[in-house]
Structures are given as structure tokens and as C-alpha cells.
């Protein structure tokens, strides 16, 4: 059944129009009745009309920003899980890996540098001390890497609740972590595939930061 309203300008009783405009005098109907979708004019003489088009575009934009944040969340969780997994495994196997690397070096020295005498000259105590020190260094680096992975996961989980801090911290940590790993192991990290992947992730996170700032502004404006 049609809903009746009375125009305040020409007093025409008419069925309520979607546009909120009186069909006779074309002026906005102030007596909007139960539906409150018609906003008050912002400037005298200029009627803004029902905001359905604009607000739907606004919510479209907001949902697009939300999906950018979802991408950021997925990236941070992915990077976090990979970083944590790789470093946790390396942390657990640090001793075996270092001893294997030392064994390889010794074998090389044994074949190149004059047979078994070189190995005999290598003092056992000094060997253990060196291995212990390198194992501690490796554990420190891989433990730090695993912690960084956990922080990435935390940032990923926090994207929805704290969009700006989580995305900014994620981006800064990612750039910083990449720079540190580049410093530690330039050969692996300077490969074209690794570089391209890092650039893509940095670009996506950067876009997410921009989207997060705007998303937060709009969300705060709605409250």
C-alpha cells in the first residue's frame, strides 16, 4: 500500500516518491514520514536529494578498501608462516647444519691442503669452541627470524582491528627484514625471483597502508 506524504510547499498530498521530491512543485518533501533517508540541505537553495547513489558508491569504495586489507592480511599471514617455519626448522637443526658445513670445509681442506696431517693439526678444543660460537650465532639469527615471523602473524591477525598500525608495522618490518636478510645473505636475496616477489609484496602492503588509513577515517566517520 502506498505511503502518503504532504508537500510542505504546495500542500499536495501524494504518494511518497523514491527521489523525495514533490511531483507538482519539484521541491523536496520535508515531511518525510517514517523513512529518514532525505538529508537536510547543506546549502540553502541546493537540495542534495536522496544519497542512495553516493552512499552506495561510498560503501563500494569502502568494501574495496576492505578487500585490500584482506589481501594485506593474507600476505602478512603467509609471509609470517613461511618466515616462522623456515627459521624454526633452521633453529632446530642449527647444530647439525653447522657441523655438516664444518665437515665439508674440513674435507675440502683435507683434499686440497696436504692430506690427513692438516686434520691432525686441527685442535679439537678450538674446533668445538668455533662450532659452539657459530651455532649460537645461527640460533640467534634464526630465533630472531622466527620471532619476526610471529610478529608478522600478529600483524596479519590485527589488520581488521587495528588496520593502520598493523599494516604500517607489517610493511616496515617486511622492508627491514628483507634488508637485514639481504645484508646477511646477499646471494640468495639478490636473485631476480626473490627480488620481484619482495617488490610485489612491498607494493601490495604499501597499497594496503593507504587503504587502511582511508578505511579507518571512513570507519571513524561512520561511528
Amino acid at each position: 500500500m502506498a505511503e502518503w506524504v504532504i508537500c510542505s510547499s504546495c500542500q499536495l498530498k501524494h504518494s511518497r516518491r523514491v527521489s523525495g521530491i514533490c511531483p507538482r512543485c519539484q521541491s523536496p518533501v520535508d515531511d518525510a514520514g517514517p523513512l529518514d533517508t532525505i538529508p537536510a540541505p547543506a546549502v540553502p537553495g541546493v537540495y542534495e536529494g536522496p544519497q542512495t547513489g553516493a552512499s552506495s558508491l561510498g560503501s563500494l569504495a569502502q568494501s574495496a578498501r576492505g578487500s585490500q586489507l584482506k589481501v594485506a592480511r593474507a600476505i602478512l599471514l603467509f609471509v609470517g608462516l613461511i618466515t616462522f617455519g623456515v627459521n624454526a626448522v633452521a633453529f632446530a637443526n642449527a647444530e647439525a647444519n653447522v657441523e655438516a658445513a664444518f665437515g665439508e670445509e674440513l674435507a675440502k681442506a683435507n683434499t686440497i691442503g696436504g692430506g690427513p696431517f692438516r686434520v691432525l693439526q686441527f685442535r679439537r678444543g678450538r674446533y668445538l669452541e668455533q662450532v659452539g660460537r657459530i651455532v649460537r650465532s645461527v640460533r640467534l639469527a634464526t630465533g630472531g627470524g622466527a620471532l619476526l615471523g610471529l610478529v608478522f602473524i600478529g600483524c596479519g591477525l590485527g589488520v581488521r582491528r587495528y588496520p593502520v598500525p598493523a599494516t604500517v608495522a607489517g610493511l616496515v618490518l617486511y622492508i627491514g627484514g628483507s634488508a637485514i636478510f639481504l645484508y646477511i645473505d646477499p646471494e640468495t636475496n639478490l636473485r631476480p625471483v626473490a627480488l620481484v616477489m619482495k617488490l610485489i609484496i612491498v607494493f601490495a602492503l604499501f597499497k594496503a597502508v593507504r587503504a587502511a588509513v582511508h578505511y579507518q577515517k571512513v570507519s571513524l566517520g561512520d561511528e
Partner: protein
Amino acid sequence: MTLDGGDPGRELTRCWRCGRDVLRTLEACPHCAAPRRRGVRRPSIDSSRKDAGRLPGVLVVFGILLAISVLHVILVSSGAKPDAAPAALVRRQLAGLLAFELLTTAVIVAGIRILGRPSRWPPVNTGSTLAAWGLSVVGLLLMVRLNTGYHELLQQQLGPAPIDAATAAALRGSALAYLVLCFQPAVVEEIFFRWLTLDSLREAMGVPAAVLTSSLMFGIAHIGMPLSIPILMVLGVLLGLARVATGSLVLPIALHFFHNLVLLVQG
């Protein structure tokens, strides 16, 4: 023409049928109900580009600074001559550091020129400022102790320090060292991290998160000393709190300067 100080959502256009002013965002003219013509600008999904403020620009400047730091570290490690005399080695490294710092200063100045000055810090009452100055002395002493303790622990675990006694003595004897290790970082880093970055972050995320994030960035910026990053983050928090408590850069600059000075003199 706009109604609301440049807000694109409130821009006016003229209706093609009745010629009256209509908001661009409306689907139809409210006066004559004429449908909007195609080609009229709608609010863009990516309108965040303008509205995101200074923060993305600050992150770009930070990325550039980090890239310069990595380049500096690579150049230093590739050009190192361990057999050189400590004094010559120190002179050479300080000259490289000076060039690096001039470059970072230029990047930061350019960043400030491009991005503009952050909004003014809200006024801070005198009591809070005085308390911050008083507590900062204790904070500085604690920070220096924490820093030396942390590095002693690292030294115990990982072996001898990268700087030997002769190099440390040569550093202490060089006037350039005080400029490039104490004065320049205290002024330029504080301007970037505690002014431009902290203020831009504060506009976007509030004070506590801004202090933490800016100190994270401060720590990571010291990529040349990766093992010192955690303790530098703690220092960054202290300096950020000093900035928040006093509302000015004078105390963070003073704290940063004296922190570096004490560590340099201690060797």
C-alpha cells in the same frame, strides 16, 4: 565549485536539462529529475591516495633511507681493509659515514619539503615538561647501562666485539667522530623519526601506536648494526616518550646526543 572546502563528494555541477546547481554525486537532478549524464566523475575507490595524508610519503622516504643504508653497508664491507692501521681505517670509515649522512640528510630535507610540515603538536603543560626533563636523566643513565649490558651479553655469546681497543681509541681522538656519530644522528634522525614520522603516524593511529611504530622504524634504520636493532628500538621508545611528554624536539635531540656521546667515550 565545491560546497565543502574541496571535498570531491560535494562538488557541484550544472544540470544539463534545467541548468540548476546539482551535487555531482547524485544519480538524477533533484529539481527536474533528469538522469545524470555519463562522464560525470564518481567518487573513486582509490581516492585514498590524497586522503591518506603524509604517512605513505613518510614510508617512501624511510624506504629510500633504508636502501641508502644497505648500499652503505655493502660498500663498507666490500672496501674494508683489515690490515690497515686503526687511525687510517677510522679516518676512511668516518669519511664514508660522513658522505652517507650527508646523503641521508639531503633525502630527509627533500622529504620534508615535498611532504610538508606535520600539524602542530597539541600544547603540553609545564609540569609534564619539567617532569620529563627530570626523568630523562634517569632514563638516559638506564638506557646507557642497558645498551652496554646488552652488548656485553652479545659479546659473551658471540665472541669479540667488532671494534677493538685501538680502533675505539682512534675514534675517540677524532673530532669528526663526534660530528658523524653524535651530532648529526641526534639532529637529523630526531627530525625525521620524532618529528616527521611520529607526527604523521600520530595523525593516523594515535600516540602509543605511533611511538611504538616510529621506534620500530628507528631501530630498523640502523641496518648497519643488525644486532643492535632491539636495543635501539627501546631507545626509540624513550626518545618518542620524551617528544610526547615535552611536545618539542629539544629533549629527544639532547638525549640522543648524550647517549651516543657516552657510548663513544666509553668505547
